[in-house]
């Protein structure tokens, strides 16, 4: 196991918001105490519904939103304490790919200039070497050299996302933050883009912080999975352990919601009703309790901390998971249904 590239501790991003004239400002707890570690060369996936704080977490890593408290250490340097040139110097090492391939490219700049911009801004290499670097980047992401002279509107969505990826890789970053990079793409183009991200990771030794609401995409690309709900991480586990046996009721609901070829018309066992509650006034106890099918009285009053279970291989924030990683949900018939699914996983993962 190599050294951690990024260490995030108790990250909080709160926004003050005035709800009306003369009313006192309320506080949106967008990210509320998130901690995790990214190992060099791996992909870390963060999943959750819209509004759970995934994107704010990504922006906080990039130092693009004011961090309320906590630290973000990139290779031992706390980014939250830096500003100005010192911060810009560090930004070389972390870059971002945005969700919307249409609005994240300046429509009045040619593709080649878009990819070259970070090099110019950070004064990397000589101008002549920059041209060469741009040409290499275009080749790396599967665009033709003449594409450098076209404008964004002349590209398809998938090609634009390739330009975005090339731009993010221009400064040769160690960490690439991908905020829903394939959500706006068609299935066929999505597969091409995911393959491109995987190939670049293997070739260049990149580390990904990967955000998606589609858990299947995370299952494909990521080595470590964290589930976020209302500003907090409720479960974190290595990919295989997570999908073989998700522990938190919310994780199970997220997985059950994904339509799949295998399940077909079978309806999900764990249906999630309603929308996530308002981050202005998060519930007092467990934040998931109002939507949780297994919620008991303790869940309404006491918030479960995120704690290590199953020999510290994974972490979960639920009152009804014991230290060995067993789930103690009532009623149990749901659990049996889930257990049979876990058996199916186990059956498939046994090596021959």
């Amino acid at each position, binding site marked *: 196991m190599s050294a951690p590239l990024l260490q995030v501790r108790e990250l909080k991003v709160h926004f003050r918001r005035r709800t009306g004239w003369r009313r006192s400002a309320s506080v949106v707890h967008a990210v509320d105490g998130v901690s995790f570690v990214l190992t060099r060369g791996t992909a870390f996936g963060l999943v959750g519904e*819209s509004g759970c704080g995934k994107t704010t977490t990504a922006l906080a890593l990039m130092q693009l939103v004011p961090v309320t408290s906590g630290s973000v250490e990139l290779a031992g340097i706390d980014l939250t304490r830096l500003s100005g040139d010192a911060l810009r110097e560090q930004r070389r090492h972390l870059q971002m790919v945005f969700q919307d391939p249409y609005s994240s490219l300046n429509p009045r700049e040619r593709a080649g200039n878009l990819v070259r911009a970070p090099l110019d801004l950070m004064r990397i290499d000589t101008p002549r070497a920059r041209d060469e670097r741009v040409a290499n980047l275009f080749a790396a992401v599967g665009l033709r050299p003449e594409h450098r002279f076209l404008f964004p509107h002349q590209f398809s969505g998938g090609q634009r996302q390739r330009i975005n990826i090339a731009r993010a890789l221009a400064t040769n970053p160690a960490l690439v933050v991908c905020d829903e990079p394939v959500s706006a793409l068609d299935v066929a183009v999505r597969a091409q883009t995911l393959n491109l991200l995987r190939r670049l990771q293997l070739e260049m030794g990149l580390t990904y912080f990967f955000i998606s609401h589609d858990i299947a995409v995370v299952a*494909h690309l990521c080595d470590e999975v964290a589930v976020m709900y209302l500003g907090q991480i409720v479960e974190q586990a290595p990919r295989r352990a997570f999908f073989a046996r998700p522990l938190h009721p919310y994780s199970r609901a997220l997985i*059950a*919601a994904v339509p799949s*070829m295998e399940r077909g018309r079978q309806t*999900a066992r764990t249906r999630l009703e309603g929308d996530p509650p308002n981050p202005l006034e998060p519930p007092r106890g467990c934040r998931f309790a109002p939507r949780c099918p297994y919620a008991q009285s303790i869940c309404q009053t006491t918030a479960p901390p995120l704690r290590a279970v199953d020999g510290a291989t994974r972490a979960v924030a639920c009152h009804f998971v014991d230290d060995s990683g067993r789930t103690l949900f009532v009623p149990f018939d749901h659990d049996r249904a889930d257990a049979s699914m876990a058996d199916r996983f186990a059956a498939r993962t046994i090596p021959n």
Partner: protein
Amino acid sequence: MSEPILEVTGLGVEFDSRRGNAAVLNDVGFTLAPGETLGLVGESGCGKSMTALAIMRLIPSPPGRITRGAIRFRGEDLLKVSEARMRAIRGKEISMIFQEPMTALNPVYTIGNQIIETIRLHLGLSGNTARTRAIEMLTAVGIPAPDRRIDEYPHQLSGGMRQRVMIAMALVCKPAVLIADEPTTALDVTVQAQILDLLQELQTTTGTAILLITHDMAVVARMADRVVVMYAGRNVEEGGATAVLERPSHPYSRGLIDCLPSIETGERPAYLPEIAGMVPSIWEHQPGCPFASRCSYVMDRCRSDMPPRFRTDAMRRVACWLCGDKVVQ
């Protein structure tokens, strides 16, 4: 099998543009039986939405033009009826929900206003009866506190709630056919599951036939009885949903299924199988199969001759030369 309620045959649509004639639909044909769900699948630009707009007669003309084919609804050719008759059908007999519920709802009217407009026009109810009907409909689509929500504006609702309002509006007249154009693509997976469940539940109570347009084969697996796979403005494969998803005959259908990442396998492949290349341009008229340039099974014949739709079993039709020897008469 009962008499189809909607029958589309040989539909062709062209658009005039500065670059010349763009053939958007070349040869689309399918039938929809009462109460069934038909999945219409394909990549962006393959003509799925254009087919839906053609059925609703909403293709802007000019520049668009339906060049050939017929759309028969209960035996009546929708391409020949008057605009007044079409207005009576649209929203009452055939209604539609769109991908992006924010742009499909009018932001300056309350959602109640918009639902009641449909009720007034098509059901002839007014005043309190119409309002009560609208509240009942909002209850049916699972909107909490409908008597309060009815006076809210679209921006006050979440994406999932807006899509529920769209569904309420589309189904309030109990239409015979509902066209759902990517109804969940803009939504989170959890909300997608809720909306798909809702559509299915409402279908069992109203008996509405659903034409479900999507690019996601997994959504088809979840919802559809039958499926039509479209490519470059024509249908390349048609058949029972389970059969097509389990044993796709056309290489393109196979590709669409294989490129989905799955959460159901313990061992993941390093790379997803992908469909190489891109959808052909709508301005290029090339002979032969439109998929030939991306197909891994391509033969000489594919580049010169357009494959007809071979009937490979009772329900399945495949436009691929590979299936030419498996034809069922």
